[in-house]
């Protein structure tokens, strides 16, 4: 049975929703451009692609109509490849990778494009016509709790002070600014042409942010809360894609493998503490890989909120020096459906760049879930 490999990773710049450089770009177009660039960079024969699997948290409007199929066609992938849209909220495009991994292990295909998109400018979080279930709202209102509120629940539960969250945010921006400024992100970013010009750098990073500036922000989700816009990931537009294939295929085609997928897991938790989801998923994935957290050389964890990563850190005991080397979502942004592909691709890429063996990629998911992937350098 063939190993599952990650052989390529690319993404669009991530820019602010509602005011950033990509607000006029349709998310399906954005996904199409990124997928097309990924396939071209790898030089693979597109007729050999089994499926285009695209994660999206609010698959409606311009992200609707089974957008994965449309993205495949927009990217110039022949009609012979299939297309499926996946929704696991923020875990959507990591789930796309998991689906491909499962299929490869089943012998149900060798080459997959696993992507994610979200234009939070053009399709609002919550969708255009939110219709929450009244019965569930009566029995379990926390299912519909806003993400910010769940962050405040964690801040209280784990007694994580505002200053600690702000220090985390400053560090995330510092790392992202260093990576961006040092040209370390150039290789993964696909320039996007817009009417106003070519967009080729991330738009959300604030290199000059500091504790003093963050201190002045009002709490965003509770009058007496600790979480601010500065310690949350911003609403973001962006797309990301990874190329997932069997190790045999990679060898046959002479593709440079970035990492093998060692194990995968998803887990559920209480909705009001959704930010803790990575803890359960990580434990499961590590157990399946027969490894410990201490074996992980690199950790890519999505920073939905600073407080949520800090809480996971308390439970799991992260080594901060291994975490989010090029910055996380607080600085880079979090286009919901695209983030999973970004952090999994980033973890694989970092294994190569840093010359390390094991990496963990993990995320929390709204509604109370976690998702995790353990990678091993090829």
């Amino acid at each position, binding site marked *: 049975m063939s190993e599952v490999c990650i052989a390529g990773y690319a993404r669009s710049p991530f820019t602010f929703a509602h005011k950033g450089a990509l607000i006029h770009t349709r998310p399906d177009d954005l996904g199409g451009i990124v997928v097309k660039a990924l396939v071209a960079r790898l030089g693979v024969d597109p007729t050999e692609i089994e499926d285009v699997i695209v994660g999206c948290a609010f698959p409606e409007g311009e992200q609707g109509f089974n957008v994965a199929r449309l993205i495949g066609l927009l990217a110039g992938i022949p009609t012979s490849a299939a297309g499926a849209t996946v929704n696991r909220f923020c875990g959507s495009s990591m789930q796309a990778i998991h689906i491909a991994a499962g299929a490869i292990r089943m012998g149900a295909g060798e080459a997959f494009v696993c992507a994610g998109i979200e234009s939070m400018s053009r399709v609002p979080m919550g969708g*255009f*016509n939110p*219709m*929450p279930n*009244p019965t569930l*709202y009566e029995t379990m209102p926390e299912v519909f709790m806003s993400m910010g*509120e769940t962050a405040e629940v964690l801040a209280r539960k784990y007694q994580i002070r505002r200053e600690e969250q702000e220090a985390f945010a400053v560090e995330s921006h510092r790392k992202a600014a260093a990576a961006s400024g040092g040209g370390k992100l150039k290789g993964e970013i696909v320039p996007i042409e817009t009417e106003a010009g070519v967009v080729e750098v991330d738009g959300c990073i604030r290199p000059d942010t500091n504790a003093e500036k963050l201190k002045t922000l009002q*709490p965003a*989700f509770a*009058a007496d809360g600790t979480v601010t816009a500065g310690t949350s990931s911003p609403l973001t537009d962006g797309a990301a894609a990874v190329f997932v294939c069997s190790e045999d295929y990679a060898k046959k085609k002479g593709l440079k493998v970035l990492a093998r997928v060692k194990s995968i897991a998803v887990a559920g938790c209480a909705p009001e503490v959704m930010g803790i989801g990575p803890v359960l998923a990580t434990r499961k994935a590590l157990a399946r890989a027969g490894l410990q957290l201490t074996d992980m050389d690199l950790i890519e964890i999505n920073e939905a909120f600073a407080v949520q990563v800090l809480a996971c850190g308390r439970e799991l005991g992260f080594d901060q020096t291994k975490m989010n080397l090029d910055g996380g979502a607080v600085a880079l942004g979090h286009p919901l459906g695209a983030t999973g592909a970004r952090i999994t691709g980033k973890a694989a890429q970092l294994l190569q760049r840093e010359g390390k063996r094991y990496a963990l990629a993990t995320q929390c998911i709204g509604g109370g879930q976690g998702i995790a992937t353990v990678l091993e350098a090829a």
Partner: protein
Amino acid sequence: MAIAKVAVIGSGVMGGAIAAHAANAGAEVVLLDIVPEGGRNRSALAEGAIERMLKTDPAPFMDRRFAKRIRTGNLDDHLNQLKDVDWIIEAVVEKLEIKQALYRKIEGVRRDGSIVSSNTSTIRLVALTEGLPERLRRDFLITHFFNPPRYMRLLELVAGPSTRRDAIEAINHFCDLSLGKGVIEANDTPGFIANRIGTFWIQVALNEALDSGLPIEEADAVLSRPFGIPKTGVFALMDLVGIDLMPLVGRSLYNAVKEGDAFRAIHREAEPVRRMIEGGLIGRKGKGGFYRLAEHDGKKVKEAIDLKSLAYAKARKPRLECVSVARKGGLPALFEHPEPAGGYAWRVMSRTLAYAAALVPEIAGSIQAVDDAMRLGYNWGQGPFELIDKIGPRWFAERLKADGQTVPSLVARAAESGGFYRVEAGRRVALAPTGSYRPIERPKGVLLLADLRLAAKPLLRNRSASLWDIGDGVAALEFHTKMNALDPDILGLMRQSIELIGAKHKALVIYNEGDNFSAGVNLGLALFAINLGAWPMLEDLVKQGQQTFAALRDAPFPVVGAPSGLALGGGCEVLLHCDAVQAHAESYIGLVETGVGLIPGWGGCRAMLARGLGKKGFGGAMPAISKVFETIGLAKVSRSAFEAMELGFLREGDGITANRDRLLSDAKARALALVPGYKPPPAPTFKLPGKTARVALAIAVKGMSITGKVTAHDQVVAKELAFVLSGGDTDTVDQTTDDSLAKLERAAFMRLLREPKTLARMEHTLDTGKPLRN
């Protein structure tokens, strides 16, 4: 010549705001200023002006997006942008050499036939154009705006002997129809009209207060309301304008007027004012002025200055008997009253009015030009000649004589013939400087009920409303209650009107000439009924309103609403049931019921929902429901007719009129345009998600409550609003009729009416005019 592109040079308070107002009028605007010394950004001044104006309150822009219509730049790098501009307005510092140098610069780039004007308030045109080329003199005039230009309606237009008539007409037309100004052609005399009289008035008021020791609170009280003058009177007005400007304006006028002018006799540079300016007490823009807001124990206290000691003390609210007696005995009773304020008022107003009377025809060709200027430029309720008519011209002339003051010949003539204004054969006529009476001509497109009522009787009338025939088969329904608040009499007359018009007329316009179209339902009346526990009567009133407005919508003829000023609550609901709206640009429209703990009960919820659902967009009812929920729930009020369109109170295709005086005529034209083949719109039907929508809205409200944005009672009100907007117990596949939604609306309204916290809100608002956040 049409004006489509306007340039303003000088981005100070006046220049910037004139540019903003030209943008409000839809013009393409260029705003230039000098290059600041030492700055890196060479266009920083003009750019800074836009930024500043986006934060200014009251807003110079009618819609924030209009700021994009202004291109900013500097005089060194962007002078070339003037080459295709139709009208160039100079609004730079009041220095002749600087202005003339600028004109020469402009002359080098501007196109043939473009018009150049100055916003000067103190320099005469003859001086501004001296030595300038004939080409410029032909295209040059003075356009004197008043501050703030968006809100003050006066525009004094001064032409020179060489100015082209068609240039004057083009500017007059644009300022009238597009900027909404009351354009008054003034003669090229010092201070033109309004400031000539206004400066005199302020100076004499200050002199007399200093000499008599009358406290400034009393001076302002007696000089304001009894004369229909804003409550700022003189001293609070100076605080607003800037006390530092007083000596400059006074000196400039002193030097400009002829020997023997009455201003020369009263002009004084008062010592206390000099000391105040030295101490930085220059009014609201400084550390304080004649009044200031001081903080005592965290509370803001208004203080007034003592003109002798220059010490502040808590401002008193004077209770003047001379003011009360004037209510019955008229202004003569006020002037004759033994209180010091009575004599003070006589000395100030008699001299000011006599001064104004002596200035016609020197400063303007007609007395109505002077009256208009003081009304539009100083917000006086009546101009000087109208005030003399109110006092009684004969009494006024005799009292002047008794005082040893000169009686101006126009006053003597008016005293003989019974007044400056008269009604002859149903038309208002005015005393001309020649001594004869001439009819007051209105420009084409100006139609006023005020004129109409001199010649005709209303078709229908009760104590709250009247129906007028405004010609061509169109009737106009006028409210005339206090603040034009809606009451059962208005509803009654509305129903009567619908019947009458159906038989005899083609269309109806709902319009009035009050400051406000309607401030909403008469809260006092509602409170009275609540306190009596008259629930069936209240419910009947709600039902009556619903039925009357539905009848308006279903009437077999077109109905056009024509608001100006506030159109709140029920006033807004009237508009929502019209076929079309022709709104004055200064229309402040909103459904503010939640502020008093209620929801719109007369169809406002339904009409807004029907409009929202009718818009094309992504499927599903929630976007419309959420938007209406937010607009009504947060009691949003538009700050212009343009904003009202964004908020959905006006529809695309509704009209906006810039000039208040043209509103009725425009509304009538709109109504007539709807007449051919008119069919009333079908009553709306709805497909609403019921409980599901309520959950979605509840989630949003919960978020707002956690962040402290809504109070406990806000949540109670929001829940009722959500109940109506969700369609009650319905489902997304079922159809809800307008009638069944009206029942929900009424029931929710009645439930809220019984909430003690709603009652508390209503009482508070009625007492203070402000909302209570409980």
